[in-house]
């Protein structure tokens, strides 16, 4: 199933297949990230989320549909990912992040919806020396950053003084775009290409702007 992109990633398709990626949060960002990772060829996926699919989720959480309402997100995700790529193994954890005893992973993707949980994931990645691809989104804006323990600031240090957001409005296209950028960073990390390495990439769909800070 990788015929249409394997030449683009020919140097590292085998690496992609073997890399173990954790997706933390199966909401808007996590839905698209997981979907794209499976289609790209990441065959060892892990996901953590303890919520159920709710109707307001369906505007942006593209892994789910009306038939999934009331189901655990992890269960719906396993079923959908299996249908998308039967080669892909998805191990799920239906617990709050801090309660999960994760196996060995290579890269973690932050698809969480609050900074408190992000800093728990950040601390885990620092302890395990695992790269973290952060993403956040709100309204028409979003940002990603790639944190490499020992090389860049931790997410907590980079975002010193950050506060939780109060707006929960989000443009569906912004969520999918930020998730696509996160997956691109995961591929770059896996393939050893240049990545953001501690910088923040901010995107604003209203202005069509994309800037690195």
């Amino acid at each position, binding site marked *: 199933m990788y015929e249409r992109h394997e030449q683009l990633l020919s140097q590292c398709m085998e690496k992609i297949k073997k890399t173990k990626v954790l997706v933390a949060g199966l909401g808007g960002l996590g839905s698209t990230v997981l979907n794209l990772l499976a289609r790209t060829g990441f065959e060892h996926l892990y996901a953590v989320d303890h919520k159920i699919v709710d109707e307001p989720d369906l505007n942006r959480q593209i892994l789910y549909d009306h038939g999934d309402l009331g189901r655990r997100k992890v269960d719906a995700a396993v079923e959908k990912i299996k249908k998308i790529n039967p080669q892909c193994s998805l191990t799920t954890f239906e617990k709050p992040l801090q309660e999960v005893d994760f196996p060995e992973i290579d890269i973690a993707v932050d698809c969480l919806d*609050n900074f408190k949980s992000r800093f728990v994931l950040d601390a885990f990645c620092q302890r395990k020396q695992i790269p973290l691809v952060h993403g956040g989104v709100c309204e028409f804006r979003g940002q990603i950053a790639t944190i490499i323990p020992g090389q860049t600031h931790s997410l907590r240090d980079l975002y010193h003084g950050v506060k939780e957001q109060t707006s*929960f409005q989000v443009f569906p296209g912004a969520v999918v775009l930020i998730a696509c950028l996160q997956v691109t960073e995961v591929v770059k990390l896996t393939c050893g290409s240049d990545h953001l390495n501690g910088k923040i990439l901010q995107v604003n769909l209203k202005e069509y702007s994309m800037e690195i*800070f």
Partner: protein
Amino acid sequence: MKVRFGGSVRNLLGVKELVVTSTSLNDIFREISDKISKEVQLELDYEEESAYLVVHDNGKVLKSWVVALYNGDSILASGQTNFSQDGELSILIPVGGG
């Protein structure tokens, strides 16, 4: 030095980036205020671990938390308030939804 504004900060100030000649934090924001004709301050509260951008605009006071980075380092964490002309100061508001 270049001062860049990201996220909704640029909506508050109406500007994307500015070049200033000052090197101390207070002078930088005095210079920014002159350039955009709005009084702008960056308040650093080390005890509360918060940075706030305070904008006085047409009799209204708008206050928003921000992340302030000098060459990618948080100035709230470092306590740095004097900067080199060849550096870059970034004031932004990361968003937190997922």
